[in-house]
């Protein structure tokens, strides 16, 4: 079947933990179900039979950010929507990645107006910028492969996912959360 059929009985493979974890993370990047505008249509097309994002292990679009690893910001981000996007991003557990899909999410696109955020990188950190208006499904798959590459080659110490006490205090002050909950975190 696989590599094990070429090996003698009781085989042993040696690798580093980083590579093993990266291999597991990179091959099952679950995206968050989250579309803002017309790019979401292309995102849906990518997940359907013709382009079939399942080939890359990302077919499970999770309706809850707590179960997903990847946030595809697909479309125009208005200022009124920006607090929700930030909240969803914060609810995704580490490790997490973000694709800014399309011109609007990358830089505001054609909407240079008072109501539109000029690039989601002002609100959340972005890993891959995907140009196009809207990008074709092949483009989204290419962006996903970039994310996979990044996940597979990542060193543990490169990922700043250790939450310090200062971070928690800052978060609690920002959201008006009482100190009791702060202790629980």
């Amino acid at each position, binding site marked *: 079947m696989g590599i094990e059929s070429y090996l003698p009985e009781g085989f042993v493979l040696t690798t580093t933990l980083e590579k093993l974890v990266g291999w597991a993370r990179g091959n099952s990047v679950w995206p968050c179900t989250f579309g803002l505008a017309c790019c979401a249509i292309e995102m849906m097309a990518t997940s359907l039979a013709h382009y079939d994002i399942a080939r890359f292990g990302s077919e499970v679009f999770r309706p809850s950010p707590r179960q997903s690893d990847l946030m595809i910001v697909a479309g125009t981000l208005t200022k009124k929507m920006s607090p929700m996007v930030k909240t969803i991003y914060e609810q995704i557990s580490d490790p997490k990645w973000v694709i800014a899909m399309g011109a609007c999410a990358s830089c505001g696109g054609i909407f240079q107006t*008072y*109501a539109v955020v000029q690039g989601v990188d*002002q609100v959340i950190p972005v890993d891959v910028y995907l140009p196009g208006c809207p990008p074709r499904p092949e483009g989204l798959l290419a962006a996903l492969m970039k994310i996979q590459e990044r996940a597979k080659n990542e060193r543990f110490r490169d990922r700043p996912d250790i939450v310090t006490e200062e971070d928690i205090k800052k978060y609690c002050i920002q959201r008006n959360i009482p100190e009791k909950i702060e202790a629980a975190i």
Partner: protein
Amino acid sequence: MAKASEIIKLIQKKHKKAIIEAQEFRGDPIVIVKKDKLLEVCEFLQKEKKLLFNLLVDVTAVDFLPYKRKPRFDVVYILVSVDHDHRLILKTQVDEGEKVPSVYSLWKSANFPEREVYDMFGIEFEGHPDLRRILMWPGFEYYPLRKDFPVKGFDFDKKWDPETIRENVFKY
């Protein structure tokens, strides 16, 4: 289906003094009425058997600031009669800071469009049941579709911080 000229004649016959101007444009009648007579005229348009305008399609406004016209705004009502299959564009003129009577009591569909006009132009509607902003968040200081508001807004080049409006948006 009545002709545009017939509709104008019917309104002129009943409300001669309320009408500022009446014209015809590509088969549709356009009638400009005085602001304080608006409700009277609207009630007549809705109830009169030969007119029977029972559907309010949209309420919108126009800013005439570049023309330095006084009063500054036009509030535009687009009416359709489903029974007779004819339509009417009703306009009224209002200056900055003045109030327009709400037509919510006659057509319930005026609720959201009037809120939109309030949000985008800052024209207040008297007698509206729930006059809040509908598109922008509460606490937004400007009226974006006014001609003296730049398209890019006043903080276009600054980095946007969503925390500044978080409370207002979630409170909604």
